[in-house]
């Protein structure tokens, strides 16, 4: 981490500092600005010759109605001596420096150049994707809207759900090139100020060129960049973010990203889905347990197959042992190689399916289903029991609601398979222990990653391992709790 930062720092800072100082001194003349934007062919220059006014803007950043109302109509209808009184209006701002003007144009403002003065007016409103359903976190009951790439819409989605002035929004600008806005949202009085301060510290220390997405941004502020586990919870769903905010967590939104991140995060949050809250509590609880089972299955099932067929035949029931041995009899590879072949084939299929358009994607399904499923067994490349094992662990990996965690588990699964192939059940257990140790060593904003379990908070266990009836949810998780609890928080 620090290594990469060091490389970047050198290059950027020297050139940046010089030009900033230079620009700040300059008066914002038309020529100077045009000089700054030289070779930017998408910059539009428009002149109103009767009154001797020139305007500069990016055509693709502005909204035509606003542009007409605030610029074209007033400027075409006035005489030149009326210009200054027009500029007295509130939406027009006078700018003093060249740097401010450049920044404003980049942000979708229109710069109006008189002979002496320069004004800017906001006409920002590029085309954006409309609010649609989330594809990665789709649910059955409950709100279906999800974040889009526009920050205004995203914050509005949250504000609409939290009608309280206590919802605070803090803005940061990150990325030397992209200058992306990052917003921190929290509910005053509920949030833990220490965590907020820590997060602000980390964000202001980030040095990077661009911030493309929240999922990428959180990797710049987490504790263990080399861990395979996601350390910040990211979601596309405003209702999830609102729930987290209400439990005292901090949410972060990155401009141009449909993902929000929330913190402090613990491992067990990744097993939650908004559907749990909309279900009856018993059903929600059982579904939650099913996800934990799926987690264990996707992690260990193939590894268990490998260790059982390679070392510990005793643990397989007699009847299965016979059919297993029969199907394995034709396979030329040891179980480890056999399992790796099929697991890698499945990973290839999955990756191919993600990239392909839906129409061709169906072909992949057929190829995968028939070729891998049937023909591989017929050809004696893999045993049919393994097909079932791998299929069940693949299905289980889809049960985990968070895509990033599910991808992580795929990696961890390979580690366990190799350990199981080398050391049998012993290796499998060692692998799991290493995994647990690693999870225990992770932190998020200085709070333990496996929080309600270690350190143990029995009340919180109730929140994460069962979905308590809503009437009983009278407290907030200890991990994000504010030192000065409000009345409801006991």
């Amino acid at each position, binding site marked *: 981490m620090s290594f990469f930062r060091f490389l970047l720092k050198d290059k950027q800072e020297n050139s940046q500092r010089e030009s900033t100082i230079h620009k700040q001194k300059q008066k914002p003349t038309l020529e100077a600005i045009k000089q700054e934007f030289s070779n930017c062919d998408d910059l539009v220059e428009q002149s109103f010759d009767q009154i001797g006014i020139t305007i500069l803007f990016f055509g693709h950043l502005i909204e035509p109605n606003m542009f007409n109302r605030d610029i074209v109509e007033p400027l075409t209808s006035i005489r030149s001596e009326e210009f200054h009184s027009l500029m007295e209006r509130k939406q027009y701002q006078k700018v003093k420096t060249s740097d401010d003007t450049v920044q404003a144009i980049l942000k979708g403002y229109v710069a109006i150049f008189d002979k002496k003065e320069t004004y800017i007016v906001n006409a920002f409103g590029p085309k954006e994707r409309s609010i649609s359903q989330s594809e990665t976190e789709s649910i059955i009951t409950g709100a279906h809207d999800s974040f889009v790439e526009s920050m205004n819409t995203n914050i509005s989605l949250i504000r609409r759900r939290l009608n309280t002035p206590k919802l605070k929004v803090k803005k940061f600008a990150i990325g030397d090139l992209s200058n992306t806005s990052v917003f921190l949202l929290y509910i005053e009085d509920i949030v833990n100020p220490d965590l907020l301060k820590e997060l602000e510290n980390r964000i202001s220390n980030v040095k990077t060129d661009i911030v493309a997405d929240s999922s990428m941004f959180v990797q710049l502020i987490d504790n263990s960049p080399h861990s395979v586990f996601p350390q910040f919870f990211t979601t596309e769903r405003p209702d999830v973010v609102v729930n987290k905010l209400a439990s005292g967590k901090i949410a972060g939104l990155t401009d141009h990203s449909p993902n929000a991140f929330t913190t402090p995060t613990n491992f067990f949050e990744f097993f939650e889905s908004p559907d749990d809250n909309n279900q009856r509590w018993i059903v929600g609880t059982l579904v939650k347990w099913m996800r934990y089972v799926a987690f264990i299955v996707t992690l260990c099932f193939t590894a268990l197959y490998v260790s059982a067929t390679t070392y510990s035949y005793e643990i397989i029931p007699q009847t299965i042992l016979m059919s297993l041995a029969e199907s*394995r009899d034709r396979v030329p590879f040891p179980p480890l190689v056999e399992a790796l072949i099929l697991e890698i084939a499945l990973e290839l299929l999955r990756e191919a399916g993600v990239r392909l358009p839906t129409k061709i994607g169906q072909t992949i399904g057929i190829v995968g289903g028939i070729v891998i499923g049937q023909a591989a067994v017929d050809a004696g490349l893999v045993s049919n029991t393994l097909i079932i094992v791998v299929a069940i662990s693949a299905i289980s990996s889809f049960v985990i609601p968070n895509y990033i965690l599910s991808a992580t588990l795929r990696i961890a699964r390979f580690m366990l398979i190799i350990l199981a192939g080398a050391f049998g059940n012993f290796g499998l257990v060692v692998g799991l222990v290493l995994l647990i140790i690693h999870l225990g060593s992770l932190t998020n904003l200085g709070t333990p990653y496996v929080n309600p379990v270690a350190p143990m908070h029995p009340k919180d266990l109730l929140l994460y391992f069962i979905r308590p009836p809503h009437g009983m949810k009278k407290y907030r998780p200890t991990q994000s709790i504010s030192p000065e609890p409000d009345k409801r928080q006991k």
Partner: protein
Amino acid sequence: MHVFVKIVAVIFFVTLITGCTDKRIIEEIAFINLMGLDLVNKEDYEKNRHLLVTASIPQIDPAAEAKRELIFTNAKSDKEAMLNLSRKTNRTIVSGKIKVILFGLDLAKNGLNENLDTFERDPIFGRQVKIVIANGLAHDVMKPEFAEKPRPSTYIDKLIEKETKMNSIPEALLFQFQRDVADDGKDPAAPMITYADNEVKIDGIALFQNDKYITKLEPDMSRYFFFLNGDFSAGAINLSFEEKGKESPVQFMYSALKNSRDIQVKVNKQEEIDVTLTVNIVGSALEYNGNMDLGKAEDQLYLEKKIEENIEKKSIEIIKTLQTNKVDSLGLGRYVRNKLAYEKWKSMDWQNEVYPNINIHVEVDAKIKDYGLRT
């Protein structure tokens, strides 16, 4: 470096430098399901300790016609037999899946302690291993192939399991058998099977004195043995008795039994030991072709009395057999031991002198719980 990188490095190296010699890939192993130990020639056994070891291994090659591989050898022990047997198959022989150990009758008569030792010592034998006695040679029971029972090993295992559940043969798992051998107040009993008339079937209960086979109870007596042996709730007995006004004996099916047994030991001043076994049975009348009206209380009482008499008679018969053969399969010694001072118990020869001569009474209390709609 970070912990994760360390973990990856460790995994990488251990994977490369590992030398795994104890791999047992399932299609390369021959897991014995059923093992038979026989004493063929007594003189040879006394001189060389030679046993006939027979192993039944499920066949996994789909091309093979037979569903199992039957291999046998002469060896001094189970472990030596493994070495000999492995020369007769293309797979590695393992004994982690042995379900049943079948002892031949002659070997059982000679005592099993010596042979059980190896099974006791080797941790690969789990608590699931059943001890079964073959009436004859174990090899003969294992050898025949049946078209309808392609895997005799599985068949025998399931047969024993089912019959144990139905309480018609005692459960004799390896550790239970050895515990009873070691207990001076109880003698072990084991299920017995036989190959006759082209079928393998249960042939009663083998009764042991310590580790030596003494005699057996016929299958039709085994139910009565269980009435005396302890509490259970399953099974049925068929009784037939004379009734007034009926020429042929009346058939009575007493089913869905629930049995509870109580043992009371009395020692009087002359140090005579007196044991009373109280048996309480509750069951349904499933079949009855006599003249009595089962709906009437007095007729019910009469029938209950008949049942009690019948069971008592058979029970006394069993107890006589046990006493004359000096086998304490019911574990009466345990109850007597609890009544006596330690010195007293130690000083007497329970098995050979005391047990055959004590008074044992049986009191049966039978109840007909229900008798169906037809009266």
